[in-house]
């Protein structure tokens, strides 16, 4: 039971990170109808930017950790958002009228570009980060087994919840959110009614990239290591989360992320950690076969 509780906590934290990435997939799929294959690598870039910004701030003499983290968060979100914008501008926008395979292949190419760019620019070796946020609380103790909730875990979950709240408000209440929902339903009609479709799609990529940057930073703080290749597997898992929750649905992405995080953690804890990725990918296949619309998704009507 104690072991279970500890794994539950770990799984929820991991799931929050997946959920943040999954939102980027689900938004882009909802509006543009493409799998943004490069999104996992945007997440990786976000982690790298956070790492470099952190190093610079520390060497500038800043010592107050909350301020450093806030600044790192802002820098990472801003720069990674620009990456998202640039990727859309270069690789996807020219292809919007092209045949359906084109953006997908272009995205695969972009994914290679980003991961190898990080490799060339920052080297192939794994980058370790010293634990920045230490300490935590002991929830309960039983027969010598301690169930702990560390501060970083709290920070990851709280940040995710706050961002999710801000983001839900953005989509539900602001002009931009309304534009996004309009584009999701019908781009032509939205354009006729005065919605700037290009700008809305750009903003979708920007927001998705910013959230992925947060996920990248949380990953960095939580695991303490980062490498150029981590975007691929994390990306597929986050996409799995988006599909599991029902692609196009925001609460679905978060729910899917949490489920994937929990499944992966419990699989590692009770079966084998080698096959945890196999478990995640198998879930993707099983969900798509038996529940193609996901848990919270709307069924797609096939039109002739």
């Amino acid at each position, binding site marked *: 039971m104690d072991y279970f509780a500890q794994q539950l906590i770990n799984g929820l934290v991991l799931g929050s990170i997946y959920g943040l990435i999954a939102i980027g997939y689900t938004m882009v799929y909802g509006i543009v109808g493409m799998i943004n294959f490069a999104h996992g690598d945007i997440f990786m870039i976000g982690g790298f930017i956070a790492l470099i910004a952190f190093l610079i701030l520390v*060497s500038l003499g800043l010592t107050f950790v909350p301020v450093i983290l806030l600044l790192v968060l802002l*820098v990472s979100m801003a*720069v990674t958002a620009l990456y998202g914008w640039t990727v859309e501008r270069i690789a996807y926008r020219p292809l919007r009228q*092209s045949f359906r395979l084109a953006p997908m292949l272009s995205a695969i190419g972009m*994914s*290679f570009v980003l991961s*190898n760019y990080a490799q060339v620019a920052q*080297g192939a070796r794994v980058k370790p980060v010293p634990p920045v946020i230490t300490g935590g609380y002991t929830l309960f103790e039983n027969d010598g087994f301690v169930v702990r909730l560390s501060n970083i875990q709290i920070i990851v979950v709280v940040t995710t919840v706050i961002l999710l709240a801000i983001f839900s408000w953005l989509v539900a209440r602001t002009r931009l959110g309304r534009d996004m929902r309009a584009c999701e339903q019908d781009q032509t009609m939205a354009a006729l009614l005065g919605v700037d479709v290009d700008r809305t799609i750009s903003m979708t990529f920007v927001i998705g990239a910013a959230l992925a940057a947060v996920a990248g930073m949380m990953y960095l703080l939580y695991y303490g290591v980062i490498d150029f290749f981590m975007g691929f597997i994390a990306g597929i898992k986050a996409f799995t989360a988006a599909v599991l929750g029902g692609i196009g649905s925001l609460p679905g992405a978060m729910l899917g992320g949490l489920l994937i995080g929990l499944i992966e953690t419990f699989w590692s804890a009770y079966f084998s950690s080698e096959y945890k990725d196999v478990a995640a990918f198998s879930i*993707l296949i099983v969900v798509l076969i038996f529940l*193609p619309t996901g848990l919270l998704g709307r069924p797609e009507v096939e039109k002739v």
Partner: protein
Amino acid sequence: MARPTDTARESKAAAAPGSVAFILKKSFISAFVALVLFSLMIGVRTEAGPAGQLIYWTRFGDLAALVAAVFFGSIAIELIRGWLGPSRRVSLVPETLNSRLSGLQRFLAPALLVFALLVPVIFYEQRYMLDLGILVLTYVMLGWGLNIVVGLAGLLDLGYVAFYAVGAYAYALLAQNGLPFLEFSTASPFVSIQFLDLGNWAFWVLLPISGILAAFWGMLLGFPVLRLKGDYLAIVTLAFGEIIRLVLLNWQNVTGGPNGITGVPRPSLFGIPLTNTDDGLAARLGIEFSATHRVVLLFYLILALALLTNWVTIRLRRLPIGRAWEALREDEVACRSLGINTTTTKLTAFATGAMFGGFAGAFFATRQGFISPESFTFQESALVLAIVVLGGMGSQLGVALAAVAMIGGFELFRGLEQFRMLVFGGAMVLLMIWRPRGLIGHRAPSVYLEKPTEISSAMVKEGHG
């Protein structure tokens, strides 16, 4: 009237495109974006220091050079765009050349074939060229195999490398352990599993078996994805490919895990080994033994396998099943309403494509003598898919030329190993922007009405045109 936020039109009002002010403004914006993008990633280099702590140093020179390159590059692009005129579509291969190319195809294919047959004669002394030829032909074969699934049936498969891996591991494991069979006996336990050592015939017996096993896996993948389309299909096949790779990586006691399998048996010339022994080919023919003999054999082997793939594809296209594949690619709903069984059509496409992948895998294993999961990553799938797309999805000659261009291009970057995938990814993006239908041109369906309309692979939407 110009919309306020449309940058292109907005700047048209301020400065006409092509004017110096417009170009400079655009280039400054690009350079500024590049500065922000690269400032941290390029300007600062991090590395784990000797004590495990992170150290960093700055590279402002590189950063400045890159930003300058973006600035002048975007000036150059704007100038070229202005020079080419208002036409938005920049075509790498001019239409006239394209139509002439299709006229040339009639002669190009036999010429290429004759050249391929002569390669071992011309380059007999140059081992490097022979190896490169084998590599190119392997990808030609993989491209043609994947072409059945993607080009003909219109099913986007991102996990093709899984079948390549199945073929390679099937061959390596069966050749090393022998072919299992059941032996019946009258004494208890009546049935036992024996392993038949195939000796010198290993490759020739196991090649079809590897192909059949891969085809079986193709069916296995095909069943669950029958209902999926487009992007979903792509992502499921990708996941399938990764699952196969992860299992190969983690199932240590069978596959050897990350260490792979070493000492995979080499091929023989129909039972005659190409070794420096008394029963080897060289000794039997009474000529001096040379390691090149085996390379030449491998070359002709993969050429034959690739041509087999091509021949089967061309023949299948004329059969009802091939027509059904093309119909499926153009429109699945119409296909179904015409009474075509989409289930068997899709499954046969997957199985046939996978079978050739399996053949290529068995060949790969026997050529390398060593296989490990490293060789079967997603990058391989993407490379083969890029070859098919570059070749124009469906055009046999196009795929062959694309494989030559792609692998040849990769070889050019051999010295710059770390930039290879960067360039490959960039090329894929540019290709999609400039020539989404491939460099060589696309293939129209084998049969169409006398008055050909725009129905062609141009409307391919992975099964729902």
